[in-house]
């Protein structure tokens, strides 16, 4: 922090952790690092503990947390891909998120247990914890989180910041209009001097999940079957568009519907990530045909080129009143006239879907058409898609390691004295 010649640098690391819970994944890691240590799917597999291979039983670790002691009906929680993506009879996949905030606290606790035990590998009472939250997080949910961290995990300090604010920080802005295209929703939140304007924020339920659902419909209409990857024993090399030849694996009986759906959704997402492309302007068959296609091979071995479909697929993200450009315009026009110039001048784009190729360019273009011409329009998006997806986490990492931020934490002492009621005051 302070250099040899008395210079004062901006950073001071105090071993803080940053958690960024989302509908798609939970990002967790140490503050002051540039990427999260782990990016864990935001679901928990809950299943009977009966069918566990021996090898895993020898190492009882944080991966598999046990609840209940009776051997008969004990439940296990399977977290993170290595545990979760294994076919297990009776394992239900449940999410703890709902409407942008944590909803199932028991499951979320399991997730935090896992984070501390397997990702951080250090006792929770040593690390101040900074959490991100969606702008709409309700007061009970915020207070519950503080309570959990202080009372169960004995965190020395805790802080909550709106993810839009952090995404702006990650882009070096304290005033910005943050467009976050996540899994469950797309939102536009004005941020002024590091404070999110809650009443001006807007959102639409169009996001990565919607895109994946759209991909599913599209593939069904094209009569392409998405076989679950875990069910394939082997496949033959075939020519393009030829009928797939494969042998199926014998799977354990009793795989739950929720788990199968979850696995399939991941595959549709993968398809989207590889194939989907956002066209420069509204979909136009003639220009879309000119762009070379992208080859994709499905788990069963079937493969083909996808041409104009790639562009058609993403049009669902730009529907008139649901798309990001519309959200931005309505969020800005809900702001005070004095703030608008600054907001148009720094539009920050983040979230997983913002990493889709062409997305940022398309939004920039549509905004240029919508922004009042008296304003200078400037959009910011980190060049790497991963940096866009992790923008909120990175912002948290920056914030938690700034020297002058260290006075902001709600310490355990303060919590003991003031209770969770002070959360509204301390973490605006």
């Amino acid at each position, binding site marked *: *922090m*302070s250099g040899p010649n008395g210079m*004062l640098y901006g950073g*001071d*690391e*105090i*071993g803080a952790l940053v958690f960024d819970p989302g509908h798609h994944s939970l990002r967790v890691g140490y503050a002051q690092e540039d990427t999260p240590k782990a990016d864990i799917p935001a679901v928990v597999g809950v299943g009977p503990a009966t069918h566990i291979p021996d090898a895993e039983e020898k190492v009882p670790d944080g991966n598999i947390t046990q609840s209940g002691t009776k051997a008969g009906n004990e439940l296990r929680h399977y977290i993170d891909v290595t545990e979760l993506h294994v076919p297990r009879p009776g394992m239900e996949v449940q999410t703890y998120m709902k409407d942008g905030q944590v909803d199932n606290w028991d499951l979320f606790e399991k997730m935090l247990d896992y984070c501390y035990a397997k990702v951080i590998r250090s006792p929770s009472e040593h690390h*101040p914890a900074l959490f991100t939250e969606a702008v709409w997080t309700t007061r009970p949910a915020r207070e519950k989180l503080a309570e959990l961290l202080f009372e169960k995990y004995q965190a*020395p*300090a805790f802080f909550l910041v709106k993810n839009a604010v952090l995404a702006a920080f990650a882009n070096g802005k304290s005033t910005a209009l943050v467009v976050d295209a996540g899994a469950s929703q797309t939102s536009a939140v004005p941020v*002024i*001097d590091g*404070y999110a*304007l*809650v*009443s*001006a924020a807007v959102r639409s339920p169009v996001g990565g999940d919607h895109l994946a659902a759209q991909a599913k419909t599209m593939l069904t209409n094209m009569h392409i079957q998405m076989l679950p990857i875990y069910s394939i024993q082997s496949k033959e090399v075939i020519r393009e568009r030829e009928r797939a030849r494969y042998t199926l694996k014998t799977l354990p009986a009793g795989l739950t519907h929720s788990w199968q759906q979850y696995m399939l959704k991941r595959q549709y997402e993968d398809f989207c990530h590889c194939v989907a492309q956002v066209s420069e302007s509204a979909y136009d068959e003639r220009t879309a045909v000119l762009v070379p296609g992208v080859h994709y091979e499905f788990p069963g071995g079937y493969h083909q080129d996808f041409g104009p479909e790639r562009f058609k697929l993403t049009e669902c993200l730009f529907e008139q009143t649901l798309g990001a450009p519309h959200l931005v315009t309505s969020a800005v026009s809900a*702001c*005070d*006239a*004095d*703030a*608008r110039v600054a907001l148009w001048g720094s539009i920050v784009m983040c979230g997983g879907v913002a990493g889709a190729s062409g997305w940022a360019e398309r939004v920039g273009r549509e905004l240029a058409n919508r922004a*009042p*011409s*008296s*304003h200078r329009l400037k959009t910011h998006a980190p060049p790497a898609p991963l940096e866009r997806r992790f923008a909120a986490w990175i912002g948290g990492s920056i914030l938690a390691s700034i*020297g*002058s931020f*260290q*006075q902001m*934490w709600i*310490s*355990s*002492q*303060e919590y003991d*004295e003031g209770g969770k009621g002070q959360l509204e*005051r301390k973490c*605006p």
Partner: protein
Amino acid sequence: MADILDILDIEHPGAGEISRDSIIHGDKIKKKYITAKSVKRPEGMHREVFALLYNDSNKDLPPLLPTDSGKAYKQTKAKLGMRKARKWTWAPFNNPARKDNAVFHHWKRASDEAKEYPFAQFNKQVSIPSYTESEYNQYLKSEDWSQAETDHLMDMCQRFDLRFIVIHDRWDRAAFRDRSIEDLKERYYGICATLSKVKTNPWSNTVTTVNGEKRIYHYDAEHEKKRKEQLKRLFDRTQDQIDEEQMLLTELKKIEARKRERERKTQDLQKLISRADSGNMPVTNTVPNNTEATHTPSNVSTNNIVRRHDRKLHKKKLSTQQRPVRTMETVTVEWSGIKFPEARSTGVWLRSQRMKLPPGVGQRKTKAIEQELRLMNIDIAPTPTEAICKHFNELRSDLALALDLKNALAACEFDLQALRHQYEALNPGKTLPIPASLCNTTDGETKPMGEIIDVVGSPSALNSTI
């Protein structure tokens, strides 16, 4: 060639010959070839297999032991840090910016003595006025605001450091009615003003003392509201409106350019006329020319404004056309030599600066003036005393005017003579008597044509001076 032989490990024939290389490295080369030759690929062994055992030449083999026996590197040991590595410890620290004495840990040099947390100095807070219950009742009571609401406002101002946009956003709409930012600001600054009148204030942001006199910031909510309204209207313009405005602006620019052009031409005309007045130049010849030039129809715009403007200009032109008739009697020379710029008011400057001809005076004229001065035996750059400056400038101005008039006169003479010749050519045998009043030549006699041209230069040169 030798390189290829080297690569193929064939001893090249020139090895034995004396060359610069063989003198310098002679012994080494020989040695190399001896060793290289000594390991020969056994018969029947694949080249690839042999290559694993023996490299092409031994020099490529990495040494098994450090073979650096020279002193070169040992003498100057690379020292990156002059000091010993200093220890860092994970140490607890206290942040004076916090009120709760919470202890956090960070890395710090073990040798550094514990001092105040350096980042605490950035803990800055705005000072917000405070009031007691009785003060409120005495001074701050308002019809519009309850005390609870006022308290809430002051609390928000403290929490959000007077960021009224954020305060407005987080305003407790459940407990109090929705208010505009201007309302909030008006109330806050009103309180500040009232309180700073009645008590000495610890907050300084709304009161400034100018020359020992207190000035209280007054927030004009009405004006702000109007300003915002205008701002909003500006932002909410449709593309059509913006396009229209843009179009009008470019039209305006065009009109102004045209206007300037016309004014320039009118001025030229004016000059010509005044010169003609003094020199009895036939005006009618040139004026129609000029009007024709200015008359180029406004082909681009169909705008009413442009038309109206044109009409106005026409009127102006007409008046200038009538001018010669009027000025025939009263000869007023409007154009008067050189206009020297006024003395600049700021900064130090040399008086000789004042004698500089303004940049508008062309090279030709400068030369002519200097020529005249030389004829008059006057220094071109006299000592610039106040009086000399004045007189010198006046003289030159007059000279310039005289020159111009002379030119104009010559041109008129030329025209007159030309017309006379024309007349004589058309009516053979007749001569055109030119009245003496028109023959304004100084000595009264008509000079031959060639001489006139000599003095004036060519008529085109005359045009360029106009």
